């Protein structure tokens, strides 16, 4: 068990280190700005006094490493400073929205993950049949379509033509859960379509890769029926690749969500990021980027730890 814990600890440490490096990149990239943030905010017509005042107010008179440490220590406890545009706390702006985004991603994941993995396994078993080929073409098409294309097609059919679901996902606090699910169905479905295709293809590849192993042939030559070969011999070795597939695609959901939120005007963190980018509201941009990157890294760590935990060679060392 010692090596196992060591491997997991090592993976966690590496993940945190990566996150730290990314925080450095996110912070210091803004420093690359021609001029500085104060000039960017006030624009061409700013006077020297105004600039100096703003710099002092934003703490720009301090050296960059000090400001980085301040920013990072704030970020750790969820304080990302104040918005340049509205002067509000960044946390107030994105707090609730982050929850909304998580809800949407979870909604999509709950549908997509079981669906895609089941389909992926079925397609792997039926490989090289007509069904497999059709599935290949359909999933490739789905992967190749930009999220906004799928989103607008769904709007066109489900809301403009049939009126079954709303095109705009406005949320408010006193909605029932069912109402919430109904309101957010189309954005969730868009995400499901994209992610399912990815996940299915990856699951198929992972299973087929496994089915070529000599121990699978051995199981078949021992007279095991096909379902036993899959359930007893392939599946216990397939967890690592499947966990990986799920984590990668959940991570993909995190970015896909930005475009989908814009299409459906969904009040999530992706929207705030896009708004902040066009208004050059750097504290908000930095906060959003850090949150997205952290989620992404966390998912990757989870996948690797899962793969380590399900590896029989590591679970039962020599």
């Amino acid at each position, binding site marked *: 068990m010692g090596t196992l814990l060591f491997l997991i600890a090592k993976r966690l440490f590496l993940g945190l280190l*990566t*996150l730290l*490096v*990314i925080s450095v*990149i*996110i912070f210091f*990239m*803004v420093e*690359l*700005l021609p001029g500085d943030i104060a000039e960017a905010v006030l624009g061409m017509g700013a006077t020297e006094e105004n600039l100096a005042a703003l710099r002092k107010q934003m703490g720009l008179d301090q050296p960059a490493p000090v400001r980085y440490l301040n920013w990072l220590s704030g970020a750790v406890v969820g304080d990302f400073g104040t918005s340049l545009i509205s002067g509000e706390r960044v946390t107030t702006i994105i707090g609730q929205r982050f929850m909304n985004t998580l809800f949407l991603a979870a909604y999509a994941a709950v549908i997509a993950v079981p669906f895609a993995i089941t389909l992926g396994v079925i397609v792997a078993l039926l*490989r*090289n049949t007509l069904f497999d080929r059709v599935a*290949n*073409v359909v999933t*490739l*098409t789905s*992967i*190749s*379509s*930009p*999220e*906004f*294309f799928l989103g*607008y*097609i769904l*709007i*066109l059919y489900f809301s*403009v*033509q049939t009126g079954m679901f709303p*095109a705009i996902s406005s949320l408010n606090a006193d909605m029932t859960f069912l109402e919430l699910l109904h309101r957010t169905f189309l954005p969730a479905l868009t995400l499901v379509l994209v992610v399912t295709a990815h996940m299915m293809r990856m699951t198929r590849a992972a299973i*087929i890769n496994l089915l*070529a192993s000599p121990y699978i042939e051995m199981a078949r030559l021992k007279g095991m029926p096909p379902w036993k070969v899959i359930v007893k011999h392939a599946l216990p070795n397939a967890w690592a690749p499947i966990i990986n597939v799920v984590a990668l695609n959940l*991570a993909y959901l*995190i*970015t896909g969500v*930005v*475009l989908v939120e*814009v299409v459906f005007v969904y009040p999530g963190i992706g929207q705030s*990021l*896009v708004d*902040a*980018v*066009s208004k*050059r509201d*750097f504290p908000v*941009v*930095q906060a*959003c*980027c850090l949150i*997205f*990157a952290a989620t*992404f*890294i966390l998912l*990757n760590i989870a996948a690797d730890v899962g793969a380590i935990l399900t590896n029989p060679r590591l679970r039962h060392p020599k």
Partner: protein
Amino acid sequence: MSEFVIIYFALLVIASCGAAYYGQRPAFLTLFSLTLVSFVLGIVGGVSALQFVAIAAGLLAFAAGISYSFREFLVAITKGNLSKELKTAPLTAAFGMFVIFTYAIAGIFAPFIAPYGEAEVIAAAFAPADENMLLGADQLGRDMFSRLIYGARNTVGLALVATSAAFFMGATAGLLAATKGGWFDQFMGRFADVVMSIPSLIFALLMLSIFGPEIHVIIIAVAIIYAPRVFRLTRAVAGNVVVMDYIEAAKLRGEGTGYLIRREILPNATAPLVAEFGLEFCFVFLLVAGLSFLGLGIQPPTADWGSMVRENATLISFGVVTPLIPAAAIALLTVAVNFVVDWMLFRSSGLKE
């Protein structure tokens, strides 16, 4: 029962019988299952559902026909090994090649094909289609069709340049890392890991917010984001080559890094690298389209598919499909490239599947 329904079923049944008579098993199965499906759909959904099925089947058959003849055309004009390999291409790959060919023509000859300039205002905002304007006008009264054609040049061109930049950086670094090994390899590997753990769209937005949505910024941003992915693949492919004894033999002969990469490694890495270029192009293309959809890509008045969707999105709520055409154009090209890449990957993986 309308005449359409009668003719529709009569044709299907005759075709099925014909296929069965001549022993064309797959054709018969396809036709007859289509007949059965249509029968069920006809009862449930009526004539409109049947028409939909007929149109869809017709479109598929048309696409298959074009793909088939395009493949035969390619086989006819090439010779030797290339011709032999093209013969094995599935219809999907032939369809992909045909689409890519069409886009290339549209992009290269845009000024000759498009009836109007990309920024030329010629009608009222959102004017409907007429004999001058195939697809109507956009929100400023510019010809949608012309902008679509110019979009092929601008959007695809931008994605192509960005992919090439990413590819050049990533592949060079990957080949060097595989050949040199040691700390350079270690460092590049770690660096690629870090960059890849920032979601690509987020990283692009960060860079665009700082440096502004200029074309060169987009290209550099995309190159920085995707070069690590290319690096990883190239490193893996070249890594498999570098452990071969013939590389050891060349090293022991005293050959330099340049010779090793050029003469020994690259010839063995071309096939997977070309396929990877196609894949990366798809990712980059979708990212660039996403950025311009968010208003952070190519800036107006230059025609660009992503921003065309965004600018005309309001029309969708009136049930008009024109704003979806540029989006469909993006999807179609990506599908096409993916089809071709899929075939290439299948070929290079041999018969493993």
